[in-house]
């Protein structure tokens, strides 16, 4: 009799990460670490102007520099029908400029050289004749009657307006406002920020001239989708394109789109017959690749005298940049912004959104957020706090009065979303208890008497992730369903291949734990492959916190398929009928005779060596998951700050974060995700902003100007959890990667506004720099 079986480290175990073994040795394989024989290097010349007619590009002096192999211009790309490409939002985007530049930093020409230093030297030798045009840097300017037309090349485009989008019931909402005892409003600009992963974007394009096989190593969060996009853009046969995402140094949405640099490098490799490497520098990354936010929002809430919310109205103008290149589901022009009614039982809501072209970089990506949910969550949570004060209620009491209650789930929101599960009150209660809310309010009152400004800010967010059900969710027509493929080898070890791509989330560990839970194979015995489009099932990749909700589900499903077959094999080995076999933690036992057992390893071996007549050999399968619904993580964050009224500086004293993401697969990794999200949320609230001057010059073009939190500024976090499983997800998990970025900016801002409310400060737009806070205090004092 074998010794007591070792505990299976499945769901709920803080398994140390398998991928760390290479990272801690400096043996990760990031894009810039890839070196191929005969590889050339590409550098891109970018426009110094935000809007300018391109009269000529002359690369002859650059071409003459020793070591320069080629100068690629828009004209050359146009000859190959590659000067323009489709965006993920169904618009078109210039790859290399042929007519005019539309934002500062736009790609004008590229140099291919034997050495990266030479390639950069050669950029200075390219002669370009620009003719500057009028510049548009905000949706307000874009909408002006006399605004310069940015997309003059688009047939039928006579102004800078891109789309109008609505959600909810306008009539019902108007009626709610007509009957309201009180209406509270808030105008706020969620400014442009940038995901700024520590590794910039880049690729190595390697097209074999003999076979036509294109292997493109790329910083991509979605290699399968990108392969299809490349097939459509370049007209290459899809089976001859292989996209490989190696280790990725952070993504946060920045590495979802297809950027011109990828296309130019691929075209250059095709034309030159050599591998071509392109690695962005930081300035290129910040000024030209996918930005985030840039929403100008107006919100109004209708209330009864007793504090009951009766209606919500939100309108917004989106600054989309020069091309509409948002990475989000096709049918949803502002993503999942319609979750803006948040955690509250609002009987009526109406949302309108208008998108505009401006002379700024394109590619609205969700910076650690599920398709514009961050903006929505910020709007409602800021509005709720202001409304509480306007109506004379404590913000926690006001939330409690209006929360969707636990027994109302599944809950259909006024904008038509079906929330799967939640217990908002429990999460808020825990956060209030952990932070010591009642005591803090007393201390705050005492401090105010001493002239000290303490602020307590709450945010009770509702996230919406896991896009999504095939009926409503697609990108360029491709349904957002994801796959997992699993083989158990004869020795009982396994290989799982998944369609999502980690950028630090720990997929090689977490997804192995799901298999471990289902089949009883230890996570370290399961190899997880991702990122190679030739060696993984189809799927749309990792962003919007969708890996666990979609691929996690597919992994559980394929494991269960294998378990079904394994049960048949076990019955064969145990010489009993299948109905009499039970599987638990990797052991198949006979009902009523628990000593009679075989292990998953025994069964796996039998699948190749001793299977019954009529059964196929092997133990492997594939599953694709079509989510029946999205999942809705939630939580309450409580932030305590002290503001120095003389300088406008504010210091975070406490951050309590209670998250409910359903079942936690690896608690250690979940907490790490929350820490990271809180830090990025803090950065957005306190310092991160991509700014432009009136001429469209990007001011936040490096890490000296685009500030990110270091260990010194970053607060310490206190975490808490409640667990409300998703009822439709196979393992009850909801996804957690972005909850903290979605929920926390409002908590930080609410805390500062809470401190300043008695002075008369009603709002400060992010980032809350000390200068802006000081100015708001001075303005309030001046009345």
């Amino acid at each position, binding site marked *: 009799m074998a010794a007591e079986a070792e505990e299976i480290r499945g769901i709920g175990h803080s398994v*140390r*990460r398998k*991928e*760390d*073994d*290479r*990272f*801690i*040795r*400096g*043996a*990760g*394989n*990031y894009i*810039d*670490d890839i*070196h191929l024989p005969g590889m050339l290097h590409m550098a891109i010349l970018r426009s110094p102007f935000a809007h300018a007619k391109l009269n000529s590009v002359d690369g002859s002096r650059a071409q003459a520099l020793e070591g320069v192999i080629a100068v690629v211009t828009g004209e050359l790309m146009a000859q190959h029908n590659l000067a323009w490409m489709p965006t993920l939002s169904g618009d078109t985007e210039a790859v290399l400029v042929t007519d005019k530049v539309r934002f500062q930093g736009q790609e004008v020409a590229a140099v291919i050289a034997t050495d990266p*230093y030479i390639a950069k030297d050669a950029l200075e030798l390219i002669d370009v004749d620009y003719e500057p045009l009028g510049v548009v840097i905000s949706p307000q300017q874009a909408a002006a009657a006399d605004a310069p037309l940015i997309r003059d090349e688009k047939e039928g485009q006579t102004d800078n307006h891109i789309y109008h989008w609505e959600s909810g019931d306008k009539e019902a909402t108007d009626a709610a406002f007509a009957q309201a005892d009180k209406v509270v409003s808030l105008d706020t600009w969620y400014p442009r920020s940038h995901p*700024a*992963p*520590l*590794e*910039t974007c880049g690729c190595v394009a390697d097209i074999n001239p003999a076979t036509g096989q294109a292997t493109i190593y790329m910083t991509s969060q979605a290699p399968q989708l990108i392969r299809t996009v490349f097939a459509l853009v370049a007209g290459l046969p899809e089976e001859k394109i292989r996209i490989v995402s190696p*280790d*990725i*140094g*952070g993504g*946060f949405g920045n590495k979802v789109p297809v950027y011109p640099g990828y296309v130019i490098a691929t075209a250059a490799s095709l034309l030159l017959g050599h591998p071509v490497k392109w690695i962005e*520098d*930081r*300035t290129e990354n910040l000024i030209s690749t996918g930005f985030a936010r840039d929403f100008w929002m107006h919100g109004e809430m209708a209330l009864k005298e007793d504090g009951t919310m009766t209606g919500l109205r939100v309108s917004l103008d989106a600054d989309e940049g020069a091309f509409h290149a948002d990475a989000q589901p096709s049918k949803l022009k502002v993503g999942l912004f319609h979750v803006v009614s948040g955690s509250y039982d609002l009987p009526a809501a109406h949302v309108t959104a208008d998108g505009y072209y401006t002379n700024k970089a394109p590619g609205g990506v969700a910076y650690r957020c599920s398709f514009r949910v961050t903006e929505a969550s910020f709007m409602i949570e800021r509005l709720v706090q202001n409304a509480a004060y306007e109506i004379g209620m404590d913000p926690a009491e006001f939330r409690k009065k209006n929360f969707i209650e636990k027994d109302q789930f599944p809950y259909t929101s006024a904008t038509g979303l079906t929330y799967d599960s939640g217990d908002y009150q429990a999460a808020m209660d825990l956060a209030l208890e952990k932070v010591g809310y009642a005591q803090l309010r007393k201390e705050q009152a005492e401090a105010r008497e001493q002239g000290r400004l303490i602020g307590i800010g709450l945010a009770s967010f509702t996230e919406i992730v896991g896009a999504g059900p095939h009926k409503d969710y697609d990108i360029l027509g491709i349904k957002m369903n994801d796959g997992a493929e699993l083989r158990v080898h004869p020795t009982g070890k396994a290989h799982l291949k998944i369609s999502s791509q980690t*950028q*630090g*989330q*720990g997929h090689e560990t977490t997804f192995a734990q799901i298999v471990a839970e289902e089949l009883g194979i230890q996570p370290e015995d399961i190899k997880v492959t991702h990122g190679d489009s030739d060696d993984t099932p189809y799927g749309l990749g990792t962003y919007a916190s969708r890996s666990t909700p979609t691929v996690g589900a597919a992994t559980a499903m394929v494991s269960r398929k294998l378990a079904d077959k394994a049960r048949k094999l076990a019955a064969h080995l145990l010489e009993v009928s299948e109905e009499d076999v039970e599987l638990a933690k990797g052991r198949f036992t006979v009902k009523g005779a628990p000593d009679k057992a075989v292990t998953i390893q025994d069964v796996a071996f039998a699948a190749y060596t001793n299977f019954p007549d009529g059964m196929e050999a092997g133990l492997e399968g594939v599953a694709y998951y079509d989510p029946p619904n999205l999942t809705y993580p939630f939580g309450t964050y409580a932030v305590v700050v002290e503001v120095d009224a003389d300088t406008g500086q504010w210091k975070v004293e406490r951050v309590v974060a209670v998250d409910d993401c359903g079942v936690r697969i690896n608690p*250690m*990794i979940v*907490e*790490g995700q929350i*820490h*990271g*999200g*809180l*830090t*990025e949320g803090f950065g957005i609230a306190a310092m991160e902003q991509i700014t432009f001057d009136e001429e469209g010059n990007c001011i936040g073009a*490096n*890490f*000296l100007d685009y500030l*990110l939190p*270091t*260990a*010194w500024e*970053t607060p*310490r*976090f206190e975490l808490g959890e409640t667990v409300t499983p998703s009822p439709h997800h196979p393992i009850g998990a909801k996804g957690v990667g972005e909850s903290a970025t979605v929920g926390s900016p409002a908590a930080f801002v609410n805390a500062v506004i809470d401190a300043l409310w008695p002075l008369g400060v009603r709002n400060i737009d992010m980032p809350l720099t000390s200068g802006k806070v000081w100015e708001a205090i001075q303005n309030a004092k001046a009345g």
Partner: protein
Amino acid sequence: MEITVKVNGADRTADVEPRMLLAHLIREEFALTGTHIGCDTTSCGACTVLLDGRPVKSCTVFGVQADGREVTTVEGLLRGGQLHPIQAAFKEEHGLQCGFCTPGMMLTGSALLEENPNPTDDEVRWAISGQICRCTGYMNIVKAIQAAGKAMSETSEDAAASVAS
């Protein structure tokens, strides 16, 4: 010009342009790709290595400035094939996610622990404040560096005890 640098204990010679950055010398000439580059302005510290035992951002040092000096990169942290305590601690405490800042963080942490084996939370945060991590929120990096300090102290106490006995 020809330079000789002691890299992770072994002399390496290279013929480089004077303008070549130390980061590129390490990555391209010495083929040690554990040193990463995250910005161009000495802001992010992903390229941090030890130059004569002190952390420097190798994107802001010319390769020729390292001539005749000693450079330690992440590849040089292993001791006799065994993980350095700081490597073990980063894994154990979940001090890394995407791994891009990790080599620089571990090197700065190891240099800090050489001087201060038992640093406070604030001391660790100050030591790594020239480096950016976008994933972890720093909490677990701080824990990992402190845990490594503790492990190193215990190891040296054990060694001292075994010598005494």
